[in-house]
């Protein structure tokens, strides 16, 4: 499509503005984490790593980080197993309600977190509490899994749809037994999609706050919850900046990898 010179300039400006709105605040957080002054003074009075040291010595923060890692890994593990199985079911078999299942699996990603959170909270209270299972890490993991399944399911299902079903037939035709076909043909074909889905699932879980608020017990604090709690405390401001900066860097890695993997041409 040919665009006029004016239109091209305008579109480039709009693009630059859009990206600026997203990334300038993030850059400020990064810079502020090295700001020597305590009060977000701008421009920074000097550069210092004192807040990074302070953050490292903060035990509450470290525990929150571990909790978040555990929750993320747990939710991702559930999502990988269930999401992959669901993707196979929906793409490989014809059954009554196939479309409905597909839709119901994807819906949680679009539902407002607060709705999922309230609903899960009520459900856990009614079902789990009488069984002696209180709110804690387990409920957080289950809560996160509800939307983590979606990304794994979506990634794997998309890949399976692109994989010609004849590839598996060809494998059987060439003499491969069912397990050989799965191991040599099906798994390699979905492996990168599966990994990308898992990375995204972990990233989703790691920064989740709304559902977490409703499913974590009083003793369970994930990293986002810790940040939210400490943001209001004036003396913790710089440390929150450090954590935010750390999270930015940590998030870039899985998202970049996931994009590389899912964008990878199937070959």
């Amino acid at each position: 499509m040919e665009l006029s010179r004016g239109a091209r300039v305008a579109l480039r400006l709009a693009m630059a503005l859009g990206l600026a709105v997203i990334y300038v605040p993030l850059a400020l957080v990064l810079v502020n984490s090295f700001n020597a002054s305590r009060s977000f003074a701008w421009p920074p009075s000097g550069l210092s790593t004192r807040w990074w040291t302070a953050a490292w010595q903060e035990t509450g923060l470290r525990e929150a980080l571990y909790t978040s890692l555990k929750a993320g890994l747990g939710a991702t593990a559930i999502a990988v197993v269930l999401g992959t199985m669901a993707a196979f079911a929906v793409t490989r078999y014809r059954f009554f309600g196939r479309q409905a299942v597909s839709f119901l699996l994807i819906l949680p990603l679009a539902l407002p977190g607060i709705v999922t959170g309230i609903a899960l909270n009520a459900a856990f209270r009614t079902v789990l509490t009488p069984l002696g299972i209180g709110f804690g890490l387990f409920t957080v993991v289950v809560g996160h899994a509800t939307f983590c399944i979606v990304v794994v399911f979506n990634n794997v299902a998309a890949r399976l749809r692109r994989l010609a079903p004849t590839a598996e037939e060809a494998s059987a035709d060439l003499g491969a037994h069912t397990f050989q076909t799965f191991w040599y043909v099906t798994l390699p074909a979905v492996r990168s999609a599966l990994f990308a889905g898992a990375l995204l699932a972990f990233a989703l879980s790691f920064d989740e706050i709304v559902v977490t608020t409703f499913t974590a017990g009083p003793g369970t604090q994930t990293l986002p919850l810790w940040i939210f709690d400490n943001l209001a405390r004036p003396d913790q401001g710089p440390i929150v900046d450090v954590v935010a900066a750390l999270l930015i860097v940590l998030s870039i890695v899985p998202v970049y990898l996931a994009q590389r993997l899912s964008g990878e041409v199937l070959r």
Partner: protein
Amino acid sequence: MTDSPPPSTGASAAGPPVPSAVALSGVTKAFGAVRAVDGIDLEIRAGEFFSMLGPSGSGKTTVLRMIAGFEEPTGGRVLLGGTDVTRLAPFDRDVNTVFQDYALFPHLSVRQNVEYGLKVKRVPRAERTRRAAEALAAVRLEDFAARRPAELSGGQRQRVALARALVNRPSVLLLDEPLGALDLKLRLEMQIELKQIQREAGITFVFVTHDQDEALTMSDRIAVFNAGRIEQVGTPAEVYEHPATEFVAGFVGTSNLLQGDAAAQVFGEPGLYSVRPEKIRITHPDDPAGPDECSAPGTIVEVVYAGALTRFVVDLEAGGRLVALRQNVEESSTDVARHRGSTVLLAWQRRHTVRLSARPGNTTPNDNPQ
């Protein structure tokens, strides 16, 4: 075993009976209420290039998939080399398939694709490497062994699929419209190449196609499929020159049918008749037809110039319409056009008239209320 009469496969060779490479007896496949394949009997001889020709939905691919083992027949038996394989899984059958979309493994190199069948059957590595190299040489792809399928052209992928199947030395190679995705020029090249490979390897080829030219050029014998049944089995010449049914006459070659009053006037007896367009001679209305010839006067209503040939559409005085072909030995397009509107006499050898049997029950059950 049912004692149905053996399928007519022409004159049988003298000597000890060799089991057919593929034999189908009463094979039926129903998908729900739809009978995709409806009671087929067929024998394919060892070493034969056998084509299954028919329009899409005629059941030819389903038959191929039942020979390969991807579909289980609802009824009847499938035999390979005399052994009943009806209930065997694909990996337990001594056949290999070249798929319409090639179905190459995208994550494996060309060499790994070709070695796959040997690898899963635990053939030692040295032999695997040697046989894969041979197979790749046979399809002239030695230099592409390290590439991925995505880095190949359509014709090259096609040859990889062929090598991947042939390396296993199957007794029967099944090919499901393998040339369908190629452009015309490449298709013609591959037709010759396939035929060569088949002759050299001495393997039975079962070739599914909807392209009548392809079937006529390549096959030793052809089975013409329609609506889940076989209308005729024969050599290309038999099928083309002596179509058994109206469907075969229409599907293989240009349909030139006469029936009803027109047929009664031209042939002296009502019925359904077919004459191939290239058999018809166009002469001046005053020229008498030969003693062994049928003739019919008419008017040229359309002249279609097609380079090598010109197609004349003639409305007969007796009613009905025939198409006659003439090679453009001398004339050019400007010359042929002036024939439009001329009164002519069409004449052809009596033996080139084929009387078609209207086989009840073999007509297409396509009563879709629309």
